[in-house]
Structure formats: C-alpha cells, structure tokens
C-alpha cells in the first residue's frame, strides 16, 4: 500500500506527453487483455458443453437405463461394466448421473427464464405506471421475500406435487422479486427519457413504448442476472431433490443420488461423491463462465457509452 501512494505521488510530477501515450497504449492493451476470454472461460465452457452433450444425447450412448437393476453388481465401485460403479440398488451410476443432469440442466435453464420473464413484466408495469400498481407489486414482492426461498418451494411441492414442469415453474417464481426490482429501477430510469417522451408524443401505445423503447434498454442487466441465476437454480434444485421433493423418485437427479449415497456414505462413498463432484464442477463452471461473460458485457457497455 505504501508504495502505491509513493508511485502516484511521483507520477503527477513526471508525466510527459510520451509517458501519457505509453500509459494510454498500456491501458488499451490491459483492456483488451481483460476483455479476452481466457482459460478461466474456456475450460469451464468445455466442461459445460460436455455435460450438455451427455445430457442431450444420453439415449445414444448405449448406457443401461437409469432405473435398470443389475443384480450382479450392487454397491460396487467403478469396474469395466459400470464405469462409475453402481448404487445401493445396483443401478448404473454413470447412467444415473447423466440422466440426472437432464433434470438439473432443464431446471437450471428454464427456471431463470421463467422468473426473469415474469419479473420483467411486473417490474416494467411497476416502473412505468407507478402509483397503486407500483405499490401493490411492491407489497407482493416484499411478501414473497419474507418467506425463505426453500420454504416457498416446500410449500409448492406439497401443493402441486413434483412434476418437472412444476419444479421449473416454482423455482422460477423465486427469481421474480430481484428481477422485478432490477427491471423497475431500470424502467424508472428510462421512462422519463426524451426518446420515450418522443414516442409518447407520436401517439405510441404504452405496450409499444414498453416493448420497443424501454425493453431493449433494460435487457442487458437482466441477461447478466439470468447468468447468475443458472447455477443458483441448479443448486436449489439439488437441495430440493436432496430432500426428495423435486422430481418423483425413479427419475434420477443429482441431489437425489447424493441423498441416496448419504445413507451408505461409510461403506460406499462413491455413490455420493461422484454426483457431488459432477455437480460442483458444473456449478463452478457456470459461475466462471457467467462471470466472464458478465465482465465482458460490462466492458462492452462501458465502451459503448
């Protein structure tokens, strides 16, 4: 810290034009370097594409079905028949993890889009019309936030049961409050701008103003928000299925496999450890990729202004 203050002290005295040009070039080079997707982007990206590929083309690999019981191998570690071993019922772990990935990834992608979509609508209404609409939406959001997310999901799982659609939907609802708040703030910001007034003066309908004038301007922070939400959705789905309250039992899901593995953690740790590892890597990768894209988005937008 001490040397930084010294440095800045000398800089202000000795800045010649040459130095300035060099500094400028250095800053641009630094900006470009920061802006490039490095290994921290590409390695997780490769992993994500791999997981996605496995999930999408799972039926083509000739794996045993995820619920097929192999009586010859029960609770076995990795072997040449079952690459990742079998679980306590003798079901193929590799197959279960791959098919479980389908659930996690579906929820991970669908829930944020549902939540951000609904939050976008509510936030635009609140921010554009203000008044009592704003007030009511505000109270609704506060109410929603007053119940811990997992509790809302527990409630929904009781009420609506555990179909994949319902899991995506109720998980999506969790993302509404923040999405609505971000949208509301951004809409407030743009609703008073000249181009919106101009559109109004030209007789554009509210719907047209919101979709054609406001929406394109507020979409960027929401895209960044979706990127953050994907790993969160995967984690929450994992917690829910760990509690056995996500998709119904024979359908494998990562959290569910981990929960099954917990029962036999002392004798066959591989059942819990493999899905844990896969899920950790996937969530970490989503975080890293999201972070890189978000930083790039921020840079691009700063550059544009």
């Amino acid at each position, binding site marked *: *810290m*001490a040397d930084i*203050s010294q440095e800045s002290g000398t800089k202000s005295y000795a800045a010649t034009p040459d130095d300035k040009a060099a500094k400028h070039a250095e800053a641009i080079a630094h900006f470009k370097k920061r802006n490039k997707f490095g290994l921290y982007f590409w390695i997780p990206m490769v992993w994500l594409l791999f997981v996605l590929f496995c999930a999408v083309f799972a039926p083509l690999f000739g794996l045993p079905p995820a619920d097929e019981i192999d009586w010859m191998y029960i609770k076995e570690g990795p072997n040449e028949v079952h690459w990742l071993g079998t679980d306590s019922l003798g079901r193929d772990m590799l197959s279960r993890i791959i098919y479980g990935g389908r659930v996690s990834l579906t929820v991970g992608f669908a829930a944020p889009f549902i939540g951000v979509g609904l939050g976008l609508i509510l936030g635009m209404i609140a921010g554009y019309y203000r008044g009592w609409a704003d007030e009511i939406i505000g*109270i*609704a959001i*506060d*109410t929603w936030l*007053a*119940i*811990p*997310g*997992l*509790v809302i999901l*527990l*409630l*929904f*799982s*009781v*009420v609506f049961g555990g179909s994949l659609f319902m899991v995506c939907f109720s998980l999506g609802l969790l993302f509404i409050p923040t999405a609505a708040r971000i949208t509301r703030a951004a809409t407030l910001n743009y609703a008073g701008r000249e181009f919106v007034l101009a559109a109004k003066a030209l007789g554009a309908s509210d719907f047209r103003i919101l979709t054609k004038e406001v929406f394109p301007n507020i979409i960027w922070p929401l895209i960044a928000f979706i990127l953050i939400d994907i*790993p969160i959705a995967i*984690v929450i789905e*994992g*917690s829910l299925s*760990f*509690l056995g*309250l996500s998709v119904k039992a024979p359908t494998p899901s990562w*959290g569910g496999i*981990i929960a099954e*593995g*917990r029962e036999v*953690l*002392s004798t066959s*740790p591989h059942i*819990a*450890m493999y899905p*844990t590892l896969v*899920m*950790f890597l996937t*969530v*970490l990768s989503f*975080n*890293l990729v999201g972070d890189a894209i978000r930083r790039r988005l921020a840079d691009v937008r700063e550059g544009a202004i």
Partner: protein
Amino acid sequence: MRYLLQRFQRLLIVLAAVTFVTFLLVNVLPGDVAYEIAGMDSSEEEVQQIREDLGLNRPILVRYGEWVGGIFTGDWGRSYLSDEDVWESITDRFPVSFELMILAQILALTMAIPAGIVSAFRPNGRGDRLIGSVAFASVSMPSFMTAILLIYFFALYLGWLPATGYEPISSGLWENLRPMILPALSLALVEWTVLMRTLRVEMISVLQENYIALARAKGMPNYRILLVHALRPSSFSMITLLGLQVARLLGGTIIIEQIFGIPGVGRLLIHAVYTRDFIVIQGCVTFFALAFVTANFIVDIAYAWLDPRVRTGGAHG
C-alpha cells in the same frame, strides 16, 4: 420515527399477506387433511365426519379469520397428526435452530475477517487472488454438499466428530457444541464469502483514507493499522449484512437440520411436509416469515440509528 412507523406498517401488511397466501395455498389443496387423517380405506362418510369435527366445512375466510385471530392469542392450532400444540412445538425447537445460526455466523466471521483483511491489504496480490478463488469455489458448493463432504471426512474418515445427533445444553457445553460444529461449518462455508467480499471492498476504500496514510507515515506497523484503525470503519456494511444473513440462514438451516438430525424448526417443517400436516406447515411458514420480517426490521432500526440519513427515508423511496 415516521420512517420506523412506515416500515412497521409495511411489515404488518406483508405479514397479513404471507399468512393469507400460505393459508390459501395449503387449504385449496386437492385431497385435504381429512383424507390424511381418515387413512387410505375410509368411507366418504367418515371423511365428512372428520371434516365436520375439524370445522373444515365452513367458508375459507371464516377459517382464515379464526386462524389469524388465534396467532395473536398464542393459539396456533394443534397438529392434526400428533395433536401437539403448534406454537409450543415451534418455540421448543427454535432455540436449537437459533443456536445453529449463531454458531454458523460466528464461524463465518472468523473466516471472513482475516480473509477480508488479507485480501484488502494487497488487492489483486497473490493472497487476494488465492482467497478470491477459494471463495469462488465455496460459493459453488451448496451447503448440503459441503455437509456430505464434512461428514465423510471428519466423522467417518477421521472419526473426530459425530455425523448426526443433538445434545441439549443441559448435558454440558462441549457435549452440546460437539455435534453442532459440522452443521454450523457447512452453513458457514457458504456464508463467509459474501461477508469477506463486503469487508474487502469497504476496507480497500478505507485504506485510501488520509488518516491511514498518516499512520503509515508515522511508521505504524501494518498489523496495527489494519486491525486497530482500518477494521472498525470498514465493517459497517458487513454488520448490516450479518443481520440480513441471519434471516437468510433461516432457510439454510432447514436442509442442514435434516441432514444432521438436529431437532430444530426446519426439521419440524420438513417432517410436516412429508406427513402433509398442514396446520404445522402453516404455522412454520408463518413463523419463518415472522422471524425474517422481524430480523429485517431490527436491521432497519439499527441502520437508522447508525446512519441518520436513512431516517428521512429519502434515499430509499
């Protein structure tokens, strides 16, 4: 004062909305509680009789009014299945959940403060980047997975700590704390990163202040500058966050209590969910919302007290 009144008014509206939504959700269910009590092979008359006995045939608003009225007088209803008083079973279990949350926060702080100081001391230095990476990894690790790894390593592999269980405080402090360490650690390992990042950001800006430069110029050793002069003014946001996190932890304890077999409110709720004991679910959700809203309210008060600018409410709109 007006600010607090406003907040309080909002709080009451929110609580009313929470109870109503919860009640509605739980009571419009297909297959209500009467079927659960009557069992699988019961006749329609029996089910009707149970409904009549429980007063479930009356209009939903009447029942809602009755239930909400009961909340104020301490009558939260009785479990349909175990006949336990809901309020009593919640208050019996809450101290356990609360202890877990407090322990988790203490552990999170003991990780966050040193890590935050080291990170802020040389931003983008080797220590900062290392801590940043560790934080990134631990954010990607949901608490139930951390719990599994901790159980595997500390309970099964090393055998130092019990994997599950709970001891009341009456059997000794250490006996009580021992089974709580792993659950609290599982929660703390997720929570510390937010605290650490907040502290780091604020401390970096505090370290740019003139009085820090002066302290440096005097030749004061770094540890003294960091711990004595920089830490306190840097920790305001972190303390606010701490309050907000207690509220968030309420949700986090549910799954941890379930994994470690700790008899807290979260476990009560999960059990009620598995057995479809609706009045207990209702009570637990209301309790969680109440705790959450109260915690937020206290944070608001503390904030208004710390920072007079907030009292006018101008900045928050």
